């Protein structure tokens, strides 16, 4: 079987279990992101796949071969590190050629393959520079070229963009994604940045406390989060305490009755999850939930409101679609409504 399979992978440090029986498949040519807060075990998992950390249990299969016990230098993976980890005493070209040399690519073929790899990341002109003469973005490209030059069966990206500034990060995200799709690279990326994961990956795996919380496409995770951790971690989300009444109604802890998706058995206690951009603001006399504006911030493309429903505060994002749209003043009485499918009832943890 092609691609990467992780079966019941575990890691204990002394008595602390940092990865609990992890199961994960990355299909050939697919890009999967391990996403989670720091300390969730995502980096440890990646380092076990690369061979830098020895698993305490479970198996890792790459293209059908069990590589769990193989030393790192025999695994056919290409890794890009957060710190880039370029060899400081070698030129850009020598950095890229190192992997080819180690894999005994004939000397005559190396220059062409180095050139091709550098060309892919648009770094050909700087082949003779030393790493310290490059900017962060350029070093990042060289690190990527170095990993790609050896045609690895699996590309591993460890927070590859976190040292770049915000603008450059956006560009490089798209660039890496395009390259990965063009070359059909099986890729596992670790990140704590949800936007990065949403932009780049085919599938996301949300991790917390050494376990997988939910895995799925960006749309699945965003629209159908399975628990409040995922709902709060992927995108912004209003989480309202209360209990589901059944029949499409949710009663908040403060007693307000809100429309929600119909959960057949009533779930109590529960949390109601509503995305800020799914909430409509209407005038005072419209049909819906009475509320008042508690605060507003003009963000350019959007206006962010803090609204109050009998003691419960929600965030509402409105698109600034037309110019000259007025920001509602604080204390304006308004009415809120949302499609019932936009309000999901989740178990309280």
């Amino acid at each position, binding site marked *: 079987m092609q691609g990467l399979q992780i079966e019941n992978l575990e890691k204990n440090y002394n008595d602390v279990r940092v990865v609990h029986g992890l199961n994960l498949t990355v299909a050939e040519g697919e890009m999967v992101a391990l996403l989670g807060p720091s300390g969730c075990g995502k980096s440890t998992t990646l380092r076990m796949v*690369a*061979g*830098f950390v020895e698993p305490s249990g479970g198996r890792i299969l790459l293209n059908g071969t069990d590589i769990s016990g193989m*030393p*790192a*230098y*025999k*695994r056919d*993976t*290409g*890794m890009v*590190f*957060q*710190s880039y*980890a*370029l*060899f*400081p*005493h070698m030129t850009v070209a020598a950095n890229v050629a*190192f*992997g080819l040399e*180690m*894999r005994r690519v004939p000397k005559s073929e190396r220059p062409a393959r180095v050139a091709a790899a550098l060309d892919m990341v648009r770094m050909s002109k700087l082949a003779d520079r030393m790493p310290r003469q490059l900017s962060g973005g350029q070093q990042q490209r060289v*690190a990527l070229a*170095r*990993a790609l030059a*050896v045609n690895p069966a699996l590309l591993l990206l460890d927070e590859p963009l976190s040292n770049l500034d915000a603008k450059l990060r956006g560009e490089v995200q798209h660039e890496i994604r395009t390259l990965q799709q063009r070359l059909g690279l099986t890729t596992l990326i670790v990140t704590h940045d949800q936007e990065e994961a949403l932009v780049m990956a085919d599938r996301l795996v949300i991790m917390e406390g050494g376990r997988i919380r939910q895995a799925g496409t960006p749309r699945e995770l965003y629209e159908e989060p399975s628990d409040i951790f995922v709902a709060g971690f992927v995108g912004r989300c209003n989480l309202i305490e209360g209990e589901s009444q059944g029949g499409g109604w949710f009663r908040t802890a403060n007693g307000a009755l809100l429309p929600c998706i119909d959960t057949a058995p009533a779930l109590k206690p529960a949390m109601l999850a509503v995305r800020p951009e799914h909430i409509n603001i209407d005038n005072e006399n419209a049909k819906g939930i009475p509320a008042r504006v508690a605060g507003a911030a003009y963000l350019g493309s959007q206006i962010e409101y803090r609204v109050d429903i009998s003691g419960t505060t929600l965030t509402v994002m409105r698109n600034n679609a037309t110019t000259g749209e007025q920001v509602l003043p604080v204390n304006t009485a308004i009415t809120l409504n949302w499609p019932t499918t936009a309000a999901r009832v989740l178990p309280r943890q």
Partner: protein
Amino acid sequence: MTGFPAFTRVGYNLLIVMAYGLIMAPVLAVMVISVFDAEIISFPPHGLTLRWFVNAWQRPEFADGLWVSFKLAVISTAVGVPLGAMAAYALNRGKFWGKGLISSLLLGPLAVPAIICGTALYIFYIQAENVLDRDIVGTTAGLVAAHVLLTIPWSVRLVSASMEGLDQRIEEAAANLGASPMIVAWRITIPMMRSGIVAACMFSFIQSFENLELSLLLIAPGQITLPVAMLNYLEFRIDPTLAAVGTIQILFIGILMLVTDRFVKLSRVF
């Protein structure tokens, strides 16, 4: 209070000049005295001359001593630095019991006065000779071993310092690209520790080159090192010849430091 910052500034600069003056005074004194034209050193001098340098050059014990010291320092450095570097690698990367103890022991020769080291080694060598029934005191091997002891703390300390700043992810990157641990050490780790190794070589060389106390008790007849030759000369005469030899020694080490600095910026090592 406008004059106050200017005043403190002058005071600060004065302090710097005084501190450097204090440190440099003995060195400068030696260099000045080496050109005084009188056998008994007196101030002010009767005149200036270079005849002490000629005398130093013509007396065989100094030229021979310089050569013996140079050879000894080169061999001790060549043996001591690899040993110290390997110890530093093990202390930084290895996981074993008694690391702190081993580290303290390796740095020990720095803390013990050299004359005590020398005496202890002398007594130890004599005892060892009795047990092994072989000559140790007065052999080249015995002397080199003693000087290697001097170079070890410097090598361990300086190489450790350069390893601590080394990003281990770089070594992982090399392994990821297919380099076995031996190749990682040879192609990545050692080149990255270059500045520490060069500094270790230089300090080891100087430690050995200028050492008097260990050599005094352990050298063989006919293998007189420069510092010992100078001490011997002092027993019979006190004239500026020694200052001339000292000046040559100072210049020699100064040039060595300048040359080293061209390859590795010494200011970056410390």
